[in-house]
């Protein structure tokens, strides 16, 4: 029987009428470092308050080291769990040593004096948080990051089995954020269970070994960072598109928000993008942000446009690397593009390899598709096909292709058409 360090069963909590936590159940083992993530108002802070005993759940039970918290006194609870809050601007004159020593409170009886055990705990806490040099300095002279470390030291002086942290790094600069995460990471070695609410997905992915997602008061995901933390779960949690990479140094997942909100209204128009060599990446972004659905083709594999499209989850017709366009792919592109409302040609270099893309456009035009491209495309300097590309573009123009100055005009036109 595994001894769970901390577990919660069916926790419910409301502030008056407002439901904050709904049926929260989880188990955490000794030595776990769990990162709690979620959008604002998801109840993360409230959960920590319940676990530390600062709030009482409406229903549900919490077990700490196997003991039901309903049977724990305030002091005993504080001997098991310590909590660190977001750094506040406390301007205390007290020396840091005294502040950290306050953390020994749960171990004292009313008239008990400080003993060697207390001193050892404080010194230990100073060492772990690397705050020895602040011991005799007044708290208010420290910087934000240093204050937070002292607060962690204070929590550690409680000699808790479980450490809770409520957005401990939110107001800190990068240096101090990493400082603190490293301290927490090392604490795991001392068999301390850590549960932290963080605002930064990457701090969690880099340092925690487990992750818990909280959305609208419910746990929507729980698992190991390595195995179950991927872009889809993160996107689902935050309603934002993310790009997942492997951090080159830590080899842990690293998430980059794409700035496109996932919550798209159903696309108002569909555009097939003809591009290559990086010319299309910007347009893919612009069209997606304008709530159009996009398809791409034909591009070669390893072309940067191909990689972008794949990452963005856009349907793309891919040709073998460095190879001219095959008939097979040409047909596929025709079929794909036929489903689009518009065809857009991105301005870029034309060579023998991608000249067929223009033929694609001409064929599509004959099928009745509207062709858009920018004035820039008609620049001869980009034509490496001895004029063939320009010719094809002129044919397109003759057959009523529309030429614009900027991408915004294109988007505006499409949007206007949609309104009709």
């Amino acid at each position, binding site marked *: 029987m595994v001894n769970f360090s901390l577990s919660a069963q069916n926790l419910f909590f409301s502030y008056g009428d407002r439901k904050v936590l709904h049926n929260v159940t989880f188990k955490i083992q000794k030595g776990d470092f769990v990162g709690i993530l979620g959008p604002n108002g998801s109840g993360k802070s409230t959960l920590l308050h319940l676990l530390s005993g600062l709030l009482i759940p409406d229903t549900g039970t919490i077990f700490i080291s196997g003991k039901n918290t309903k049977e724990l006194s305030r002091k005993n609870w504080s001997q098991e769990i310590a909590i660190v*809050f977001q750094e506040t601007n406390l301007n*205390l004159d*007290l020396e840091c040593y*005294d502040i950290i020593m*306050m953390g020994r*409170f749960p171990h004292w009886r009313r008239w008990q004096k400080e003993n060697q055990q207390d001193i050892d705990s404080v010194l230990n806490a100073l060492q772990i948080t690397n705050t020895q040099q602040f011991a005799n300095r007044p708290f208010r002279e420290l910087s934000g990051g240093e204050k937070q470390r002292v607060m962690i030291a204070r929590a550690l002086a409680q000699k808790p089995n479980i450490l809770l942290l409520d957005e401990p790094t939110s107001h800190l600069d990068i240096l101090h954020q990493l400082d603190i995460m490293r301290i927490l990471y090392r604490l795991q070695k001392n068999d301390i269970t850590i549960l932290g609410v963080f605002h930064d997905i990457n701090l969690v992915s880099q340092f925690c070994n487990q992750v818990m997602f909280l959305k609208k008061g419910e746990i929507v995901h729980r698992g190991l960072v390595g195995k179950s933390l991927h872009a889809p779960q993160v996107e689902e949690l935050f309603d934002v598109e993310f790009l997942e990479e492997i951090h080159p140094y830590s080899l842990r997942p690293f998430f980059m928000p794409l700035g496109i909100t996932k919550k798209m209204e159903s696309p108002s128009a569909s555009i097939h993008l003809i591009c290559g060599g990086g010319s299309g990446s910007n347009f893919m972004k612009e069209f997606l942000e304008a709530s159009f659905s996009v398809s791409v083709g034909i591009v070669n594999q390893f072309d940067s446009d191909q990689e972008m499209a794949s990452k963005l989850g856009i349907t793309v017709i891919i040709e073998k690397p460095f190879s001219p366009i095959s008939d097979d792919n040409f047909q596929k592109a025709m079929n794909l593009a036929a489903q689009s409302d518009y065809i857009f040609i991105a301005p870029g270099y034309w060579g023998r390899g991608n000249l067929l893309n223009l033929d694609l456009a001409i064929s599509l035009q004959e099928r009745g598709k509207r062709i858009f491209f920018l004035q820039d495309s008609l620049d001869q300097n980009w034509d490496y096909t001895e004029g063939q590309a320009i010719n094809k573009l002129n044919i397109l123009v003759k057959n009523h292709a529309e030429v614009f100055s900027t991408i915004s005009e294109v988007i505006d036109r499409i949007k206007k058409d949609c309104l009709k």
Partner: protein
Amino acid sequence: MKSLKGRRIIFILIIILVLSMVFSLGIGGGRFQISDLLSFLRPQSLSPSEKTIFFEIRLPRLILSVLVGAALSLSGAVLQGLFQNPLVDPYVLGISSGGAVGAIVAILSGISLGFITLPLFSFLFALATTFLVLRLGQIGHKMPLEIMLLAGVAIGFFFSALISLGMFLAGENLHQMVFWIMGGFWNSSWNKIYTLLPFFLIGFPLIFSYSRELNTFLLGEKVAESMGVEVEKTKKILLIVTSLLVAASVSVSGVIGFVGLVVPHIIRIIIGEDHRQLLPASLFLGSSVLLWADIFSRTLLHPVELPVGVLTSLMGAPFFIYLLRRKKKGW
């Protein structure tokens, strides 16, 4: 180490207090007379009236002013620590207004139970006011202190109006009311000391035992609670104990202002916020301050006696301003 400095200052304050007490025994006839002091040490040589002067007038007076000064400063320090608000003084829960109304009711009603009448009425009304404020300020099991402060202010206003009404109805008893409210030690007696003593003997050590809790309040109530402090229980106990101390003080010596507000701040500027030193230091400084204020009230316009409350404000304010300026220049 800061606590060493703190302990040294406390030691100095104790010495000052003891010396002041000895000195005050020699104050008579408007000035210090060493002969008075020496004859005090040989009680057999005193005439009956001289004996009365020393043992029934001077000694109880100095003890009472020391005790009240201690109670007010200690309560002020505790309340400032509880409310985490530097503007708080011992009368923040309306105790002084309640006590004054009690005294006024006693005067107007003409009820006479002997000399205990005024102090008893004052004490009961002061306590009633406190409990009224505590109940008003309570929400469920919690005592949110901002609400408590507001309740105290509101009740204070109400009682001030009653005081004005009482004064209006006073007629020829007006000056008695005014003097009671201004506060003074003219009628110090051993009886008054005996009535105060149990509150102080129990209250002082009890408050000191909560020094560490008060320190945790500096970090915020949430953090304090997470560290095992029973925040609501602590608030309740400290509020009740300080209220008893202050109500008792007000009932025997009227409303003496400023001491409870300023003395803890002076100590904070000198020693810091650690309540393990702040509380005892405030107590000893407060005793000396009130003792000296009483000495001046007896000597400045001898044989006329000034009300002590006036002197505490006159003495305290400029000194406090001086300390503030020193602190700003970074000492």
